[in-house]
């Protein structure tokens, strides 16, 4: 108790220094809570966007397609849709899609910003079932959904905005058929989709499956099916699939993103570690100055019979007190900041329009409440502060008492 009181009083002995050091620690805690909240929010929203805009709960793809997915090849297609769809009837919902590469041709005379062409990956969809599985068709901000057999095309909002495309604008898609010949599909923009998914806004190009089938000569074959269903139903389906088909779970389909997120988390941990190192150097410096300035006092306390352990503990408690003040200030700043992050978010959409940062998030990124990050940062701050007192205190305490008393 006497040590606690002594440490507490010493804490305010150099109150300016204590406050400055605690502020460095508070900054570390603030950054920790902020970054953790921000990244957790980004991860959660990205996974959600993957599920509702791209992967569903799982997909069935033609064997070989996933391994060669970067080719977006028409060599790997599901031909026998009828028998497969018979197995899918028990699921909550499913929809077929056909992915293929194309050149997107546009002309200034049609209202585009310039004449040109862009390589794109087009997804041909079934307008009847796609809205049952995917969410993006509820977010057509201008125009309407494409219909079966309609020469219509849906574009992501940032993609359309960049090219100057508007509803009603004519578009040409130059494609290679399944057999290698070239054809051009003349389409008209029917709708522009704007979602909370940066990747979709930047890249989405959708046309009706029937039109793609006609021009690509795929004879009803598709790349795959996106499924919604319970884990149990999907597991049963996986087991019943014939050769030539491959089931991929949500986990499999988002594996790349998960790896990227894990790597990103590692970098963040390094950054946070560095912030804490900087803060702890501040604590160490403050404690070192405080301890060296009090070395004669330490000598006196040792003369009185206070043990080295008691003196060490008193310095550790003092340093942890600085940590506690830092935690208090850090939390006082981090809580309102996180309230803002969670409720309002930060709009960084201007960055995502041009760069793919890997996260499929909306332009406005929301944070997340994580009790763990508050707890972890508090414990880390407290422990690191305590440890920082040990080295300077040891240096003083390992010297003879007579030296401590001589050093004034």
């Amino acid at each position: 108790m006497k040590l606690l009181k002594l440490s507490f009083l010493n804490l305010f002995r150099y109150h300016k220094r204590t406050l400055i050091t605690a502020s460095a620690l508070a900054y570390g805690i603030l950054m920790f809570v902020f970054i953790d909240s921000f990244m957790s929010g980004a991860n959660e929203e990205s996974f959600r966007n993957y599920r509702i805009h791209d992967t569903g709960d799982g997909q069935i793809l033609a064997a070989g397609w996933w391994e060669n997915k970067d080719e977006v090849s028409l060599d790997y297609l599901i031909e026998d849709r009828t028998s497969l769809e018979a197995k899918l009837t028990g699921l909550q919902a499913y929809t077929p899609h056909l992915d293929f590469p194309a050149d997107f041709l546009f002309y200034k005379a049609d209202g585009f910003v310039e004449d040109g062409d862009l390589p794109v990956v087009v997804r041909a969809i079934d307008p009847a079932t796609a809205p049952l599985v995917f969410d993006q068709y509820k977010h057509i901000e201008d125009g309407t959904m494409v219909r079966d057999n309609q020469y219509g095309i849906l574009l992501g909002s940032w993609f359309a905005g960049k090219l100057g495309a508007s509803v009603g604008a004519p578009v040409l898609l130059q494609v290679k058929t399944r057999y290698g010949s070239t054809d051009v599909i003349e389409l008209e923009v029917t709708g522009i989709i704007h979602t909370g998914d940066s990747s979709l806004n930047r890249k989405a190009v959708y046309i009706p499956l029937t039109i793609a089938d006609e021009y690509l000569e795929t004879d009803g074959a598709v790349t795959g099916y996106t499924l919604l269903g319970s884990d149990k139903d999907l597991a049963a389906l996986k087991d019943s699939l014939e050769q030539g088909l491959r089931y991929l779970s949500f986990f499999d389909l988002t594996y790349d993103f998960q790896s990227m997120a894990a790597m990103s988390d590692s970098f963040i941990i390094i950054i946070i570690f560095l912030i804490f190192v900087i803060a702890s150097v501040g604590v160490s410096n403050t404690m070192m100055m405080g301890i060296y300035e009090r070395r004669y006092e330490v000598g006196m306390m040792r003369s009185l019979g206070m043990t080295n352990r008691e003196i060490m503990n008193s310095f550790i408690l003092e340093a942890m007190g600085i940590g506690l003040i830092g935690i208090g200030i850090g939390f006082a700043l981090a809580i309102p900041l996180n309230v803002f992050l969670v409720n309002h978010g930060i709009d960084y959409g201007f960055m995502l329009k041009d760069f793919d940062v890997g996260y499929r998030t909306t332009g406005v990124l929301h944070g997340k409440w994580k009790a763990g990050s508050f707890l972890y940062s508090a414990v880390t701050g407290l422990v690191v502060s305590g440890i920082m007192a040990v080295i300077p205190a040891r240096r003083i305490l390992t010297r003879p008492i007579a030296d401590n008393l001589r050093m004034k």
Partner: protein
Amino acid sequence: MIRIQNVSKTYRSGDLAVHALKDISLTIESGAFLAVAGPSGSGKTTLLNCVGCIDQADSGLISIGEDMVSEMDNTGRTQFRRRNLGFIFQSYNLIPVLTTYENIALALQLNSNNTKEIDRKTREILREVGLQGLEDRRPSRLSGGQQQRVAVARALVGNPKLILADEPTANLDSHTGEAILDLMKEMNRRHGITFIFSTHDKMVMERADRLIRLHDGEIQSDTGGKQ
């Protein structure tokens, strides 16, 4: 009774060896009021440090009462200091964040958790050294003389066998120094506690019951009573 037998201490600074104490032997009776005088570097503080278990002699034996302190390890010496010794320093050396009361009570808190007993003893010594009314003041709000009174009270409160005072009047004016010396003499008389001072102060030498003069680590003279 304090026995010091053939005590030597050498400090080394690089290649330089300073013989602070050279084969010192002396006996100090319990209840003595003894001053150790001598010029700077004569070994006064080293002798006090060795007797006070703050420093360890290179050779020789030191016993205080029945305890052979020169044979004790670090922990033993710390425990011995805590229970049996009191220290008064030249620059008072109070803890600036603690009040008068707390500075004195700290010496008792090292040995006991009995708050009632600590309070009783602290208030008693405060009265005895004339510090009533100043209990709640921090050292920065006390005069030099008052601070040294607190240091004396802190040294006395644990009822030690021996109090070692390193130039206790050096930072005080002559009037205040005399008053402090009177206080220590009174405590020596009243409680029978042995006092050993190191000093340059003629007044302290005159009031000591016994005066030992050191020169270059050796006893130059040892005179009993007022000389």
